[in-house]
């Protein structure tokens, strides 16, 4: 199914931000037609050599000649097949490749995405599990209160057992007394550490990527080069392309200086290396911008877990066939 920049624009123009799965499917289908028509129309208007008819995209991997929309000099489109072979009973999902060089540079090419990473079942329960794990496994609570043994004083019996009309007590620091110890309070720094199985954490990443793609919040970029290091350029770009209030940019290679200086001053647009990708950040930021190299890296890393043997010894020690 073709994921175009068109559907997002059309949905915003309709005045509603559709995020539920059912409505997004129907809107994406109808809007993909509009998107294809828009791409086709743009192709017709920008050059006589472009094909007049809309290309048949569903399920095919053939080259689709696109003429660029931006005023930059026309280049051949970027077409990237899947890095890992796709099983024969499933077909890859496709996405547009964009560019950050110009605010209009939205249809640079097409890429195939592996369905076992970008089209898995949308398991919201796994997203919740992984997000809660990320929140809690680092937590160390430092709350501590003194018990009756630790409160200063209270060794002597305050008054004799019998004879005074008062209640019997053994120390002035028992939990019944004002100023006494707490019997069942928080005790010492407590850790809430636990680990989920590795395959569940991997599946959480796959589900999050799927959800972002299917809700038109995933944008694939060829590289992270921008014309100026002005943070306002990125804000205007995100505004123009209707990306939302927050953008998470992920890259595998070394990050160019211009974009890192631009992003350093912005709060809601954040840049992380591919090692730092996680479900919580993907859910917190409305849009996810990924480079082509990152897509290759993620496909290779996340698909390995589907067909690996279980570990006889920790994976940190060398194996003959991994990495």
């Amino acid at each position, binding site marked *: 199914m073709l994921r175009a920049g068109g559907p997002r624009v059309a949905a915003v123009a309709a005045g509603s931000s559709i995020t539920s799965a059912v409505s997004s499917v129907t809107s994406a289908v109808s809007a993909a037609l509009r998107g294809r028509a828009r791409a086709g129309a743009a192709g017709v208007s920008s050059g006589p050599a472009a094909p007049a008819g809309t290309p048949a995209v569903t399920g095919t991997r053939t080259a689709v000649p696109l003429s660029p929309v931006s005023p930059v000099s026309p280049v051949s489109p970027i077409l990237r097949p899947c890095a890992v072979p796709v099983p024969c009973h499933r077909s890859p999902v496709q996405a547009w490749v964009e560019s950050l060089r110009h605010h209009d540079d939205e249809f640079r090419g097409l890429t195939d995405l592996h369905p076992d990473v970008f089209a898995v079942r949308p398991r919201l329960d796994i997203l919740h599990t992984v997000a809660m794990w990320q929140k809690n496994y680092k937590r160390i609570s430092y709350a501590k209160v003194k*018990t009756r043994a630790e409160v200063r004083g209270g060794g002597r019996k305050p008054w004799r057992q019998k004879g005074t009309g008062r209640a019997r007590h053994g120390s002035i620091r028992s939990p019944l007394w004002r100023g006494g110890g707490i019997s069942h309070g928080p005790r010492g720094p407590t*850790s809430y550490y636990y680990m989920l199985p*590795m395959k569940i954490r991997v599946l959480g990443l796959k589900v999050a990527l799927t959800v972002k793609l299917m809700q038109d919040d995933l944008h694939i970029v060829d590289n992270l080069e921008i014309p100026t290091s002005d943070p306002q350029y990125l804000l205007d770009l995100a505004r123009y392309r209707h990306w939302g209030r927050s953008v998470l940019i992920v890259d595998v290679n070394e990050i160019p200086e211009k974009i890192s200086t631009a992003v350093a001053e912005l709060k809601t647009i954040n840049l992380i290396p591919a*090692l730092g990708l996680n479900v919580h950040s993907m859910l917190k930021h409305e849009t996810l911008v990924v480079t082509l190299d990152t897509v290759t890296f993620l496909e290779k890393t996340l698909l390995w877990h589907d067909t690996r043997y279980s570990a006889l010894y920790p994976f940190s020690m060398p194996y003959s066939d991994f990495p």
Partner: protein
Amino acid sequence: PLLQAERSISGGGTARWGPVRPGLPVPLSSPLAGLTRAFRIKEPPKRKQVDRWTEKRALFGVYDNVGILGGFQMHPKNLIVGPKWLRGWRGNELQRCIRKKQMVGDRMFVDDYLKLTKRIRYLYRRFNRTGKHR
């Protein structure tokens, strides 16, 4: 003072046209009508303004999957910041006290160490000698 009486003046069963007592500082319908002493009406507390996009909050959870994505050279438990005896480990109170004594006991203050030993002794007897599960 008879607050009710000051406020309600009936017209003998008939309808009343016009204000009861013209020129009142507070209209008769408000809850402050007829009261000789003004008291403070409390408002619900205002929400504190939380910035959801600070550095810490925006980048929370980054590098949690450094093991899976980074070739297993690093484990996320090594990223946890905290007391040395609790990094990447979880236990109940007795286990925590024993681990603290093992790892950090010789560095502690004397009275803290004695309190810790006392606590270990108490918890051991409590868990292993009392109750249903021994």
